[in-house]
């Protein structure tokens, strides 16, 4: 490569540097487009869900959608009430969170404040590995291992139930919640702990009264992530909770969630453009709004409790 000479102002050199400038700008533009793709994806999701839902709401009034207590869009006597799906989603998520949040938090406190170095070094990657297991595998556990096990304790439990789906979902989310909570607690500066120990606090007191309040924003974020995972989880409930939409508040019953309804319709063969086809977009929009609420909540919580060191 010839060494460029700065004093050379011949037209050739100028053209070369202009070409070089142009190439830089084109590359920058391409990189920007790749980054902007994420914004495009978001808009595509919102546009698609809303436009298909609008067609749906021409057939069904919003009031019926929100208040009707039956969801039977594929029957002759069609009802389009989202409540049964929302109740299924809420119950299965609640069962999951009752398991995942306490267990996840206790494990995180132990790993962050009590565990010896080697235990933590082994447990952390282990938790990450468990977080990568496909959800369909957990569905297998729920239907073929946990349900029969629960049936020996609760003989009335049907073969499909929100309870076993929720339990396994909870077990599935434990690694997420504990890993993220532990990260949040580890990020609390050491001198806060040292200060607490110096005035004679035990590890437990330090964990509860110093570390947890200081990392509240991160812990809240971990919880919110756990909730939105439970709400959006599909395969475990699709496999283990049955797929009939029931307006139930009892976890011992089979029911459908928003996600399982979408799966159920997709497994069948609905013609593109029919009302049945549009129902899954209306259900998807509901799901997106639900998760959006949790994400915004998490964002606000983080802002409200952010500690600055």
């Amino acid at each position, binding site marked *: 490569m010839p060494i460029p000479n700065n004093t050379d102002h011949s037209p050739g050199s100028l053209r070369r540097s202009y070409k070089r400038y142009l190439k*830089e700008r084109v590359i920058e533009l391409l990189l920007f487009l*790749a980054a902007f793709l*994420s*914004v495009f994806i978001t808009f595509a*999701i919102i546009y*698609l869900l809303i436009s298909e839902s609008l067609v749906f709401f021409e057939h069904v009034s919003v009031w019926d959608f929100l208040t009707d207590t039956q969801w039977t869009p594929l029957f002759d006597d069609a009802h389009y009430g989202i409540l049964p799906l929302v109740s299924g989603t809420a119950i299965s998520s609640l069962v999951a969170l009752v398991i995942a949040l306490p267990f996840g938090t206790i494990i995180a406190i132990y790993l962050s404040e009590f565990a010896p170095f080697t235990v933590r070094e082994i447990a952390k990657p282990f938790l990450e590995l468990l977080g990568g297991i496909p959800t369909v595998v957990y569905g297998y556990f729920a239907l073929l291992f946990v349900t029969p096990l629960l049936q020996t304790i609760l003989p009335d439990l049907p073969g499909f139930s929100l309870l076993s789906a929720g339990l396994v979902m909870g077990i599935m989310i434990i690694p997420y919640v504990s890993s993220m909570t532990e990260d949040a607690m580890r990020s609390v500066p050491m001198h806060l702990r040292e200060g607490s120990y110096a005035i004679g*606090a035990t590890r437990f007191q330090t964990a509860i009264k110093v570390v947890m309040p200081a990392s509240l924003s991160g812990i809240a974020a971990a919880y919110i992530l756990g909730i939105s995972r439970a709400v959006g989880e599909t395969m475990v409930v699709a496999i283990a909770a049955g797929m009939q939409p029931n307006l139930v508040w009892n976890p011992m019953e089979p029911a459908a969630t928003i996600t399982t309804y979408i799966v159920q319709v997709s497994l069948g063969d609905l013609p593109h453009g029919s009302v049945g086809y549009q129902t899954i977009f209306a259900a998807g929009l509901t799901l997106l709004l639900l998760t959006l609420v949790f994400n915004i909540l998490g964002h606000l919580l983080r802002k409200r409790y952010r500690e600055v060191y």
Partner: protein
Amino acid sequence: MLPMNHPDNLNEIRTIIAYHKRWDLLALVAGVTALMIAILTFIALFGSMVIDGMPRLTWEFFTSFPSRKPEAAGILSAWVGTTLIMLVTAAAAVPLGVAAGVYLEEYAPKNLITEIIEINVTNLAGVPSIIYGLLALGLFVYQLGLGQSILSAGLTLALLILPIVIVATREAIRSIPVSIREGAYALGATKWQTVSDHVLPYSAAGILTGVIIGLARAIGETAPIITIGALTFIAFLPPSPIQDQFPFVSFQWLMEPFTVMPIQMFNWISRPQEAFQHNAAAAGLVLVVMTLLMNGLAIYLRYRLRKNIKW
């Protein structure tokens, strides 16, 4: 007021200390117990799957098509489908994700658009995977007319893991000291020369870690693939990408119908016969081993990276 070392006071202090120490011990026991319960639960779950599925893991299981007879059924079309879809996913997600990460770390000015993009990437990571399935159903399958093909599925999963690749790229790039860039600029390199000759090669291992984790996630994703309408019973293979006649490569396979490992497993789980459920356990074992190996590799790579590189 009594002096500090007065017996009454001392006793009270001792009670308080004993009380708090008891709570401390209790918390320790609770932590260990919770961890043990969690570990035992996972061992029991996977153990039951190994017991059910292990006898089915024969060579024929990998080389047979799904069948009505459970003993003859296998996962050939499923693992071929998964492999091809992963090729499409990687081919789409890696360049786009790395480019986006490079832009956000190296090029992006501090302005509103950059902030919007950053918030967006975080939000996309929290969108349930089935929503991506709906997006793909509307966009890829119907509006772009790609149909229920390997290409549609691969692109869907690429969108899904894009945030993972972007975040990993950014973290890898951020860990490279500014002095490397300053050195390149001092020698007259342009921004792109600096990025392509220095920043990207040095962060390659970190990016690779993220890509592997993303692909491991994509392998196990079931819901979005069901939504775009994967078939569950495929007893044929897509045409081979390498042909013996000119032009030797064919992209016919991109437009073929397909099935993947998790869908094959889902299909077997939902059947009432116990023999099919053993097949499901076997397919689940293969799936778990695949994701564990990939995630394990990623964790190992990251560990090596942290240990070896000292700038």
